[in-house]
């Protein structure tokens, strides 16, 4: 009896391991660390989306960023999904969100407590509302900021406009 169940138990254990492994872990970053990451990205175009687990329009938009990342898989384009969930709550809210939802693009948590400071440092034209998307390309010396929800098409057009700029 015992031996018969062993392979099943083993299989379940492996399955459980895989499930845990696919839940994305996020890294906490400050604005300085985010800037350093972009500066080190040399030839990359960074598409940085600011969102939160409690923001419904943001969550509607997330799959579009995953689609974008997949469409540009062979080009130097990097999607960063930066959560602005409250630093004191991210360990619970963001972790449980990432366990429940399959998010393919890289997730970061903005570890900054003072919106009055960080909003202006990220984009002076930003009112602070989310979703908001910043596109930065150090190599091309280009920058674009969009505040508000986008459709998949609008996002693609925005990204194209910065890449295809003459």
């Amino acid at each position, binding site marked *: 009896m015992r031996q018969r169940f062993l392979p099943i138990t083993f299989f379940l254990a492996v399955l459980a391991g895989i499930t845990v492994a696919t839940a994305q872990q996020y890294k906490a970053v400050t604005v300085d660390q985010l800037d350093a990451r972009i500066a080190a990205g040399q030839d990359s175009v960074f598409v940085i989306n600011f969102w939160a687990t*409690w923001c419904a329009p943001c969550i509607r938009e997330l799959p579009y960023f995953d689609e974008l990342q997949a469409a540009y898989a062979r080009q130097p384009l990097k999607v960063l999904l930066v959560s602005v969930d409250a630093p004191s709550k991210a360990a619970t809210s963001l972790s449980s969100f990432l366990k429940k939802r399959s998010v393919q693009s890289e997730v970061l948590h903005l570890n900054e407590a003072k919106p009055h400071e960080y909003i202006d440092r990220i984009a002076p034209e930003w009112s602070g509302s989310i979703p908001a998307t910043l596109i930065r390309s150090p190599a091309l010396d280009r920058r674009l900021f969009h505040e508000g929800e986008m459709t998949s098409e609008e996002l693609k057009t925005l990204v194209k406009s910065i890449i295809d700029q003459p």
Partner: protein
Amino acid sequence: MIKTTFALVLAVAFSSFRPSPALTPAEGEGYDIGSEVADIQLKNIDGKMVSFSDFKKEKGLIVIFTCNTCPYAIAYEQRIIDLDKAFRSQGYPVVAINPNDVNRQPGDSYEAMQQRAKEKGYTFPYLQDETQQVAKAFGATRTPHVYLLTRNDSGNFQVSFIGSIDDNYDDPSQVENHFLEDAIKAVEGGKAPDPAKVKAIGCTIKWRES
């Protein structure tokens, strides 16, 4: 590009509609520093109508557009209660106004507002801005969105400060700048608040769909 707003995940509010951009007031519309405010008439949670003109002896009013549902408003709720306790006796009571569209945010219904105020023991009016006309007149865009009104030489209320209560919504113990309290202190000292305007940090007001 569609300029949209926050909506909350609370109560699994994944609605399929999108806010119409035309109905969302742009930043910078409405009252500015020095603007004299028009009187209001909004229903309080006790069923009575409240107007600014009801406050005859007060030196000013702390008008806060806020709601039951936004994480920022929730984070600031206790501070709003404390502000009223601290400043009512000094002549600056809190007047809280909920501008959210109830269809988009059922958690901000009149009944939910009553319940919330009772649970938390609000000592100040909590008014429903059902038509959103007051929020639009003020140019409020967020919950919470703070306006300090003070009496001008003509005895009318005018706007003296716009923005946030302080600079750390997440952790009250780590606040460095108490914007609103500093503004009241400045006014009390006969000075103009500096800064008179800071960004309001919060959720976008849930405007009505057409």
